């Protein structure tokens, strides 16, 4: 599991220690489900977000 407290500190986030303690459980739980999904992503799979420039001039 990630060390969320170290990540927060390294990112310069001003999150009080007591609040940080409350974050690790939910983030660990999410990470447990999310991380395995990412492993098999094909490089050509693009994100479901994008610009549609052809419509901007309308």
């Amino acid at each position, binding site marked *: 599991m990630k060390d969320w407290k170290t990540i927060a500190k390294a990112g310069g986030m001003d999150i009080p220690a007591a609040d940080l303690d*409350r974050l690790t459980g939910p983030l660990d739980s999410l990470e447990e*489900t*999310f991380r395995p999904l990412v492993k098999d*992503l094909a490089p050509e*799979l693009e994100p479901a*977000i994008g610009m549609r420039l052809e419509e901007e001039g309308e």
Partner: protein
Amino acid sequence: MTIREAADDLRARKVSAGELTAAALHRIERDTHNTFITVTAEHALRRAREADAELAAGRDRGPLHGIPIAVKDLFAMRGVRTTGGSRIHGDQAAGYDSTVVARLEAAGAVILGKLNMHELAYGITSANPYFGAVRNPWNAKHSPGGSSGGSGAAVAAGILYAAMGSDTGGSIRIPAAFCGTVGLKPTYGRVSRYGVLPLSYSLDHMGPLARTVRDAATVLNAIAGHDRRDDTSSRRAVPDFVPRDGCSIRGLSIGFPLNFYFDRMDADVESAVRGAIARAESLGAEVKPVAVPDIAALNAVARVILLAEASAVMEPYLGDRTKFGPDVLALLDQGRLIPATDYVNAQRLRRKMQREFSALWTEIDCLITPTTPSPAPQIGQTTVRLGGRDEDARLSATRLVRGINLLGLPALSIPCGLSPAGLPIGMQIAGPAFEEALILRIGAALEDSGVGIPPCPPNS
């Protein structure tokens, strides 16, 4: 009384828009469920007088003409503060109308004000730390759900004919289920997000809560359609969404999920939803058991996107942590810790999952599930016990609805029963993209056949 009945009475001159509006304002004054943040009485009475004058002059704007409704307090309304249920915006009033408000008023609706909600639409309790907790009209000790809790409670309490909500991870469908109203989350892009305080740009959907399926469809008719001020707005043609009287679902294929949706489920909820599915079968629909893609994975991907986008939206305000309630602040802190790579990969997974899920629509016309795994928890209750284990109340309430936001699909929640404790139970009808008319027809046919609940008793 429904929108249709009120509209008929208006045209028969049995009642005026002014009288409907004055009666609704009177109900707001007596409201014990804390459903409103701002009441725009003067504006509403003026609009009602204009509506009456127009009808008298032969100008009829359609079924919403003169009908009192209200909007969740994240829709901009010219000259009226939009708080988002938060302290961060102060009493700032927009100098413009959101597209939804503009379209509702163009359709003749009389907007009574701005409804209470979960702080920043980021939660499901509507126990707002600044404007007070919204209470469930069926039992004031219970939560109305959220984040559109004021919308659900005001409609259920009979204060309003319909209300606008927003849905990022279930925030229309959850209060609809908990309060016993109809709630519709349209397809992403069907209803403009312009002028609505964002929570998550790629997950936010705007839609109505109403007393009946046809009333929800009537509101959708008014607000749907392309808006060049919203880059994600669809150019799809807008059909008439209101189901015909006596509409049929004979021959439709209704998917009954074999996996996930009935796991860890309150027995009364399961029984009510299975009963409604059996009713659909008796009406001539084919009920087809189907294996659905990994919904737990959908939910995880949706949560990564929501956490990251919401924290990005709120980043400018996070310098003052005292301006957020503890539950919202915890989520915003979590979102700041999501790496950019995870956000991008979540959006890539989203595309993959959308493709996987779209294959389902070659087998079935719609999917019917419970909306929530249990009826409304009590105000302040943080866990619910399901399947022999305690589950976080927020994650439980969103478990069956959040994934649909990731896919952008339309989904309707309709009431389908009451628990032994007298709390409403909701069922969800989800369909292919831009097939709102189909899921509304299914909902209306079920409603016509008797699936539903009696009106909420006063002063519960």
